[in-house]
């Protein structure tokens, strides 16, 4: 069963090919990690998927139909990395706005505020938050959106170890509620902690897709058996 199928997605910036024939699928209720080093095309992939950046080729489809870029917001919500939206507005307003504007989950508001420990910063303007605080606030905001699939670009960037674990737990709890998460992560240790399946991206190409065991087997078939079964070793073997 597939909630979103990505087929042959290609994106070029002039002579540079940022994404080349990228295909993979997103299954309902899973945490899918898009793993790759900096510059591997993760952000470009997410922006093309969300329809905020035009792709040169390829399709994105749900179970029933191909989704045009303008229709993808019915299925996907994309949280970009390194943004500070509405910098003068307080966190409390941003959360209310997300619920009101997107028709989001008002019933989840208190839970999200508690899980991301936002009580102390609710009245602070978003522009005045530290990188980690802003990341937590924006992740909380994204969890309130109504789309069944959430794409989060580098959700752990800017968080310390304790915060990373807490956020990972919060995301896991959210998935248990029926949502599907696709996370772009360049820290493989973080990815291994939270993701069910992985898409390995390198140089704009998909080098492998599957669970850790599946990827490990794939590496063995290609004659690049990793030293151990860790995601790091598998990633290095396949890319």
């Amino acid at each position, binding site marked *: 069963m597939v909630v979103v199928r990505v087929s042959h997605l290609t994106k070029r910036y002039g002579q540079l090919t940022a994404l080349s024939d990228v295909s993979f699928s997103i299954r309902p209720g899973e945490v899918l990690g898009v793993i790759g080093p900096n510059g591997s095309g993760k952000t470009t992939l997410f922006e093309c998927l969300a329809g*905020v*950046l035009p792709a040169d080729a390829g399709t994105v489809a749900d179970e029933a139909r191909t989704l045009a870029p303008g229709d993808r917001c019915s299925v996907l919500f994309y949280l970009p990395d390194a*943004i500070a*939206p509405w910098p003068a507005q307080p966190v409390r307003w941003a959360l209310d706005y997300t619920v*009101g504007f997107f028709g989001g989950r008002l019933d989840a508001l208190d839970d999200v505020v508690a899980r991301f420990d936002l009580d102390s910063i609710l009245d602070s303007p978003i522009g005045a938050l530290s990188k980690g605080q802003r990341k937590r606030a924006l992740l909380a905001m994204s969890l309130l959106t109504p789309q069944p699939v959430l794409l989060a670009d580098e959700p752990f960037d800017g968080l310390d170890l304790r915060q990373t674990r807490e956020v990972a737990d919060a995301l896991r709890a959210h998935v248990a509620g029926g949502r599907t998460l696709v996370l772009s992560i360049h820290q493989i240790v973080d990815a291994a902690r939270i993701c069910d399946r992985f898409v390995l991206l390198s140089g704009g190409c998909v080098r492998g897709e599957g669970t850790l065991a599946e990827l490990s087997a794939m590496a063995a078939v290609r004659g690049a058996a990793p030293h151990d079964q860790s995601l790091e070793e598998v990633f290095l073997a396949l890319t």
Partner: protein
Amino acid sequence: MRLPEKTGTAENAKSAKRNVFSASSARAAVAFLWLLDKEWRELLSSRAWWVLLLLIGPLVGVSFIGVVRTYAEASGLNGTAAGVGEAFSPLVGVWAPTFSACELAAAFLLPFVGIRLVSGDKQSGALKIELQHSMSALARIAAKALVLLAGWCLASAAPLVAVILWKMYGGSAYAPELVTIALGHVLNAGLTIALAAATASLTDHPSTAAILTLSVTVGTWILNFIAAVQGGVWERAAGYTPTAMVAEFQHGLIRLDVVLIAIALISTGLALAALWMRLGVPARRRTSESLALAAGATAVVIACTFATPSWDTSENRMNSFPEADETALASIRASLHIEAHLAPEDPRRVDLERRALSKLRRVLPKTTVQYVSATSIGLFEQSAPHYGEIWYDLGGKREMSRLTTAEGVLETIYALADVKPPIENDAEIFRGHPLAVQPKGAAAVFYSIWPALIVAVGFLVRRRHA
């Protein structure tokens, strides 16, 4: 008995469809209200808007205080005899210069407020988030435009204070004139907002958008300059620049073609902004859509130039001939062609245009005017055989005159048309509203109270939102 059952099912389906439609409309309306709230909050947190509010008070004050003094000096000379009464029209004597501060603010301050509101979302990443709502780009840009217009209306409180002060001094204020001026400045602000939104949406950085916006403004001034020198098609085009448009309203004239063209240009600017706001659409497609939009807008603007109705809202009928003359002119059925041998920069041509022909076109819309000259200033054409001649052709009958006054032009036309000139009605002559008072308290209001109030309110509002 299956038929009623089927009908019932169809009705249920229709009702369900209606419910789905009304639910989605309600959701869209709620989202739009949230967007309006967000844009309003963003405007309140924008320093550019507070600077606009702060500066518009002193700008209006400088103009108002100056013109009230001049008006008082002229009134003190008891120059209220018939013939100079027009000089004591508050429309020309007070409101036009006072409201011109708004024109300055619209040209140099408002663009930055608009650019900040549109570019801010791009810079902060908010646009990428908001684009993930199915709301149309046009609705998004409309929310910004509405909020910016509301912000402009609040800034217009400064000239409103001037009106209140003038009334307190015992001055006369003719409501239709004030409404006309306000309409002109709202349309001008609309043009600025649309231009700023389009440039901010087209460019990646606010500074590029600001340069582009000011370039367009300067471009319209260059067009006015070329029109003054070259005349012809340039002169016609320059009649629709924001400066020329505001000047018409400041003289109490509402021209349908000007209003329609302003609305068309505002709509085009906002539509262009909406097209380029859609980050997910390939640039090539956005470019071709923009070109199609520009072609459509050009066609609409050209079509609008054929709209001839106009309304003179000035108390002294400064844009119209006396009513008796208008009735007499309206009885002339033959088409009138005028050939004036006057250069674009010749003061006689300016007189002829302002005092007679602009009024004549309002009564006889089918009048055609052709200017003939070999140079732009006419200085070296004075000795040319036909220079200075104005030829009138009415239904095949021709007459030449050198008069550039309204009376001279009317006299020639009546003679050609065999129409008896109407008798001048003394009761119709506008005697003016002289007022010899000093602008007491205006300096305190515009230079102290207004800035202090804006700073205090700005501080409180920003603290409340921060």
